[in-house]
């Protein structure tokens, strides 16, 4: 029973989700929206679970003085500070500009996030260096294609027209063909995975039987 019931629920919900795509009736739309609402409700409850997990892990690190425990302390202080300034003193106005909550978000969190994202530029350079080393025929083709694409925005005089033609060819013929093959494969793979789950063939994600 402990094994059959979850599989029956998955199969039932999976089958409903499949057929509702082909039935445009209002009743089915309502049921579909209801199911989506439920995922949000479950998500909200799970957030409490996540908060407990995070606090527990960080507290343990601080208590044990594990490597990097100072970062955990900062994370804990940040977590509770945001809860405090967001809920207690300015509950009604916490999402308005000019409050402490929004100031912390705007002037501390967003710059830190932007700094993290900007690292991507440097990482792209180092990854591109490794990827574009012309050690094999395929790597050489990749290198040449990348150079042609990158030169698209560089004024090359009379060569610009030729380069633009090459760029268009690369993007609309080989690149588009590969992308479409990828999407077709993903579509079939997703259908196969859904089928495996609905038929109860794949149960690894369910945990204990």
């Amino acid at each position, binding site marked *: 029973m402990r094994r059959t019931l979850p599989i029956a629920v998955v199969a039932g919900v999976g089958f409903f989700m499949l057929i509702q795509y082909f039935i445009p009736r*209002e009743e089915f739309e309502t049921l579909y929206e209801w199911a989506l609402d439920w995922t949000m409700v479950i998500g909200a409850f*799970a957030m*409490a*679970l996540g908060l407990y997990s995070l606090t527990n892990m960080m507290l343990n690190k601080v208590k044990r003085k594990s490597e990097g425990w100072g970062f955990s302390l900062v994370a804990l202080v940040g977590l509770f500070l945001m809860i405090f300034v967001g809920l207690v003193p300015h509950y009604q106005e916490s999402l308005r500009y000019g409050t402490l909550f929004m100031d912390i978000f705007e002037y501390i969190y967003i710059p830190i*996030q932007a700094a993290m994202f900007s690292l991507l530029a440097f990482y792209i350079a180092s*990854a591109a260096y490794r990827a574009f080393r012309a050690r094999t025929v395929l790597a050489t083709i990749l290198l040449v294609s990348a150079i042609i694409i990158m030169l698209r925005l560089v004024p090359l005089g009379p060569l610009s027209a030729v380069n633009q033609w090459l760029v268009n060819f690369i993007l609309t013929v080989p690149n588009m063909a590969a992308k479409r093959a990828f999407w077709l494969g993903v579509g*079939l793979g997703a259908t*196969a*995975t859904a089928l495996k789950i609905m038929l109860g063939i794949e149960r690894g994600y369910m*945990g204990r039987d």
Partner: protein
Amino acid sequence: MRIKRLFGIGFLPVFLVLCIFLFLQSDFCPAQEVGEVDILEESSTPPPAAPTDVKAVDTPNDNGHSITVTWTLSVDDGAGLGNVVSYEVLRSDAPDGEFEVRGLAPAGEESFEDKGAKEKGDANYLPAGVDFYYKVRAKGDGLFSDSEVSAPAHAYGQWYHTGKTPVVVAVLAFSTFALVFITLARKGKKLYIRPLAGIEAVDEAIGRATEMGKPILYILGLGSADMIATIASFTILSRVAKKVADYQTQILIPCNDPINMAVAQETVRAAYLEAGRPDQYKEENIYYLTSMQFAYVAGVNGIMLREKPATNFYLGKFYAESLLLAETGSLAGSIQISGTDEIAQIPFFVAATDYTLIGEELYAASAYLGKEPILLGTLKGQDWGKAVVMIALILGALAATFNFQFFLNLFRIQL
């Protein structure tokens, strides 16, 4: 005397009126001239002829809150007087009742979809099963003519979306392939599946971690538990965790979604139980970090640099964080296996990790790792599905080249 008076007193006003008239006709007063001509034209132009043959029918393949109105163009639309600017569609619940404007269609248009809301409280609510009457108004230059009132029509929801028939056929055909091969596999037929380098490397990667005495880092990506890539990642995690339990090494799973965390905990616990080592399972190794994208990257990168995991798995849904994670892992000296169905992230993973599962390979990985015949059957079905798609593509290209519309229409989907 009379003539003298006429010329002396009466001629003056006549002369003045004549001068004013000539002045108005001259170039010194163009605005007044255009206005006057406009007024003359407006009053002299008849209204555009009304559209004819107005029909209202339920809009097909919808939820029952829409009616489609069609008409034959006014004879003055693009021809005749050529003065139709637009068509106004009006609706009433009685043929002689008050009609309200439901929408506007430009000249040349022969249909209009009166799409209403399904919520009763909405001002635009269009109830299903209630008869409505329509008329179409041809408008032009402030003048208009109304058509005859249409026959009554009511909206109702359909039980089947006919525009999605090609999808039904494709799903049924593909499911048949998969089921046939699952049955063959169950009967013991040997199925050949081409090897995947990324999957072959899983054992080696876990063995390396065991030898080095360092943990394995498993990243489920930024997808939620309802995404197929995340579900595929859970099934792979189940296999990987079983091997990890067998090898008695540690697996760390920082999650960005609390639901993913709960599912991952259960999945790994079950794998340890199956491997006969429930005592080795540590729930504290599978934890929630944050739901914010770059905060998550900072947290995971910190773990990579502090714990120096021997092996990193990145399997699931990834976005801009893919390269930030994979490059840090590469700098930390870990062996890395990645896989995603996000096409934009594939090049980053190919450049920065040792092995990459591309798109569908991510979904197939669980079957490869489990080597269970039933799971391999679905892969074989998938291959046959791909063969059919390839044949359809070739035939489609030929049909498009030689303009065989019938064949092309077989694949047309209406959403």
